[in-house]
């Protein structure tokens, strides 16, 4: 079970420094938090012409929230706003166990690896933190 959660892929993403930085030309900045764990991220987006040109984050948290954030940024870079919204919803539905068909989840790319979190209710919030934060950041755009 645990091996399906703490995979090497997730370990890599949670330790990766690539997306952990500040954007020079951020157009949106959104804080997200999960008070019960103490997880906190600040998400920065550079949006132009309805497209997420670049994204980055800072903050602290567990491996799941950090990996999830990192994967999300990889996925969202270059996506249109509408597309980003749809993918965030897809991800959140997956974590809530509402979508289980692997084919449908392919679009999520590496983030689909977090699917098994749906079996761990105590960690659902860790996995979805970044995605809810993104959703708030682009809401109404």
């Amino acid at each position: 079970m645990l091996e399906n959660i703490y995979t090497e892929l997730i370990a890599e993403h949670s330790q990766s420094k690539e997306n952990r930085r500040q954007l020079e030309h951020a157009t949106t900045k959104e804080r997200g938090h999960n008070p019960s764990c103490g997880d906190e991220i600040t998400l920065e987006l550079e949006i132009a012409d309805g497209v997420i040109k670049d994204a980055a984050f800072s903050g602290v948290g567990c491996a799941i929230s950090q990996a999830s954030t990192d994967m999300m940024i990889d996925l969202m870079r270059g996506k249109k706003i509408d597309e980003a919204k749809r993918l965030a919803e897809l991800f959140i539905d997956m974590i809530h166990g509402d979508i289980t068909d692997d084919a449908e989840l392919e679009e999520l790319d590496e983030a689909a690896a977090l699917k098994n979190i749906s079996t761990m209710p105590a960690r659902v919030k860790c996995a979805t933190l970044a995605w809810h934060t993104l959703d708030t950041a682009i809401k109404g755009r």
Partner: protein
Amino acid sequence: MDKNFLNDFPILRSKMNRHQIAYLDNGATTQKPESVVRSICGYYGGCNANPHRGVYELSVRATKIYEDARRKVAKFINARPKEIIFTKNATESLNLVAYSYGLNNLRGGDEILITIAEHHSNLVPWQRVAQATGTKLNYIYLNADGNLSQADIDKKLSNRTKILAVTQISNVLGLVNDVKKLAAQAHEVGAVVVVDGAQSVPHIPVDVQNLDADFLAFSGHKMLSPMGIGILYGKRKILEEMPPFLSGGDMIEYVEEQATTYAELPQKFEAGTQNVGGAAGLSAAIDYLQGVGFDNIERIENDLTTYTISELKKLPYVELYGCDAPNKVGIVTFNIKDVHPHDVATILDAEGVAIRAGHHCAQPLMKFLGQNATCRASFYFYNTRRDVERLIEAVQKVRGIMHIA
């Protein structure tokens, strides 16, 4: 050889994730022996009625169960029955004091003194009282070993201090504060002393008269009892002068359209139908605890704590908090380097080891310790060295599972 307590706690013989459970989250809540569960069921199966109100036999029985529980609690902490108020948990007990005593006795210029190691339940209510009354909320900080700084106490306790609110045992560090000495010092400047006994009453003998505490709050569920019953002890004279907190049925004497007189202690503070089933369980829990004996409880917990600390100290990637002071009871807080406590707790859970991860409702203390979150193993007398071994074995697996070199 200690009695095999597991015989009395079926849940401790059950499995969690295919392993026998090692329940090490007793600081959050304890498990209940069969005698306690039987006593709740027995109450509902044979004596259930609204106490105080009925003339008929069933109600008389319910009243007796409820008042016997009060007498038992009073004896347990060396108080008088009138001084024992039943609440729903320690948090309500502390809020009762904050609302009824705090809001009515403080004014601008006064100070409230608490420690940086308080649980939110003995902190946020005082923050709100301070804001509502325009008083100042001061903090006692800690020495490097985690104990209260006497220099800080001496500096901050003054005749402006009207309330000193302090936990007897920190739920994060497990260190026992010398409440008796603190109370004496606080009384010298005329402050009222509120003791948070949520982590102490279940683990060490507490005598309110010896401590000379003005108030003592604790929860049944952390001492083998059902949830939904808490206790507030208050000195009779102080309680008598306080206005009621919750109002409604059973706490009144005469109600007219525009004015009400209130019942005597303790009813004055017990509004509405009380948790008699919870009181029945609490009674049985105190009986059980007295059967075990605090000498045994302290000896067993001390052994487990010492053993855990010495084993964890062998692991170079483990950082411990408050584990070098001698006045330590049953709680070991630590972190594994480069691994977030929530990941640790998830991995331990998969091994059947239940610990707590997070801020433990003590965010200011976390900040003071420079940590975002920690892991906490907390013991009760029914834990065994085998539980500790399981904890240590699981801890040793963590970094591997997390793919940390």
